[in-house]
């Protein structure tokens, strides 16, 4: 007893001396800005991340154990929902918005297409409680988890010997999602100096900087602000974006600027998934902008791109696809857990 205690103290002393700790820092390139997420309130640990990953892939978070976060946010689609313009939830209900890709969330200031959620920790409450998504309550999720030996163990590893709380569930989900960092595309390799753009990509990069970078700002390829990019309102949905939250007319039709990383994996595009292909998006920007009260001033003069320009821009956008991120086994279904994921 006495021995083991002094051993622990010794390990702690050595760990502090060498700057090791149970906690880990987020790994990201030095040309990324400082994250928005405040890690002081939720220190990342291997155990916390692993717990979050288990929760993310577990349909236990839904009412009838049928839908997990990954049902709508698949790793192979950069955590978006491919083949569905609008998301698809419990009892085959169709939502009103396209499930966005999830990566580089630590840099995001607000969440959802309209900014309804102000913090990553709080985001998961929305799908868990939504009657058309997972139709569960966080209270009941906690009760269900408390009955699973495996989760009692995982929570203890991550948060110590306290009862499972709603805050723990949300913090663990944040921890896993914060590790979803996309920073290994060709663009990143060029930034690091280990690769070069070809001529077409270079031309595309110049066009990008002239026409797109003000909103889809590098290196994250979004400034995470809200803008009206001239999409015509889908009258079957009547989604006015940020207006729904602030009820101020200046916010009508403003949607969060999505990142342009990983577009190859995250089709369809826009808040309602109206475009399946990138050339449709480019055609939108060159010839289909709808002028409404809140249209971003940048679009008052239409963007002129020749078909060569479009091909160049497309070539540049391809350099933002990060295959290493999409196929990173660390982000995928945790195979070490029980064989039957529904168990």
């Amino acid at each position, binding site marked *: 007893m006495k021995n083991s205690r002094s051993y622990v103290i010794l390990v702690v002393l050595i760990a502090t001396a060498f700057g090791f700790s149970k906690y880990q820092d987020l790994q990201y390139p030095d040309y990324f800005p400082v994250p928005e997420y*405040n890690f002081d309130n939720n220190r990342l640990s291997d155990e916390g991340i692993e717990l979050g990953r288990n929760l993310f892939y577990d349909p236990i978070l839904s009412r009838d154990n049928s839908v997990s976060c990954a049902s709508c946010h698949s790793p192979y689609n950069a955590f978006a929902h491919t083949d569905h313009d609008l998301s698809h939830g419990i009892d085959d209900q169709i939502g009103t918005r396209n499930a966005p890709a999830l990566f580089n969330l630590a840099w995001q200031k607000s969440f959802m297409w309209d900014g309804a*959620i102000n913090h*990553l920790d*709080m985001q998961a409450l929305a799908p*868990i409680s939504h009657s058309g998504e997972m139709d569960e309550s966080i*209270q009941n999720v906690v009760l269900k988890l408390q009955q699973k030996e495996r989760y009692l163990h995982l929570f203890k590893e991550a948060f110590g010997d306290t009862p499972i709380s*709603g*805050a723990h569930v949300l913090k663990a989900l*944040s921890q896993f999602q914060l590790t979803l960092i996309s920073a290994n595309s060709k663009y990143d390799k060029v930034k690091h100096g280990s690769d070069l753009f070809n001529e077409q990509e270079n031309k595309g990069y110049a066009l990008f900087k002239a026409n797109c970078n003000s909103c889809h700002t590098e290196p994250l390829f979004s400034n995470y602000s809200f803008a009206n990019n001239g999409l015509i309102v889908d009258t079957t949905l009547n989604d006015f974006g940020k207006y729904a939250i602030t009820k101020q007319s200046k916010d009508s039709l403003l949607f969060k600027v999505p990142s342009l990383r990983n577009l190859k994996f995250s089709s369809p595009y826009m808040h309602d998934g109206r475009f399946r292909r990138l050339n449709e998006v480019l055609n939108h920007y060159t010839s289909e902008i709808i002028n409404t009260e809140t249209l971003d001033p940048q679009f008052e003069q239409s963007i002129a791109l020749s078909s060569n320009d479009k091909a160049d821009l497309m070539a540049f956008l391809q350099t933002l696809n990060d295959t290493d991120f999409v196929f990173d086994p660390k982000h995928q279904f945790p195979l070490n857990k029980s064989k039957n994921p529904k168990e």
Partner: protein
Amino acid sequence: MKHCCILILFLISFTSQSQNDPELIQINPLFNNEHLELNKPYFLASVNDSIKIETLKFFISNVQFFQDEKLIDSLSKKQHLIDLEKEKSLQIEMSRSNRLRYNMIKFSVGIDSITNVSGVFGGDLDPTNGMYWTWQSGYVNFKLEGKSEACSARNNFFQYHLGGYQAPYKTISNIELKVSQQNLIVINFKIDAFLNGIDLAKSHSVMSPNDTAVALSKRFQKIITIGDEK
């Protein structure tokens, strides 16, 4: 030697305890001047009908003590969830030295905007307490639910979930009350006065930050008073 130390420690703790009576803030929800009980019928004069309260939950935060406008002390626990279903939650312990003199107490009903944007917290703020909106970020500051024949909603059910931390729907309400130095501060919440004048037939559900939530939150300044020491 060791035993001697323990004895001294014991004596110190014993004597200091007997000097400091437990100091408490007792939250006292009232209906028609009686202590409010859940699910009990009361008469609400302003709608001329009977009424039952099924849920009363709210946050008290940032409790501070002042002497002639000078801040003397504040409670270290910042947010307290008061839930009429849990009698114990109506008592807030004041772990402070009672040698301090004060003649005013200030606190807020609701959660401040910094806390609202700082992610998830456990304890009284844990999302399992049912005081956090799910589809749009923000705490519910105050939740009052019940039934009355006068209410035209389904099952005569009314629900006031007041919250909102961003302009123009900022709903946190700051309260100042003159108090005399005492070991038990009773704070009345006159729920009949809160409901007074609300047309239950029309305005029975407030479920998100909006103008009505702001207007109703202004009522707290009138319905909260210092009670008698019991």
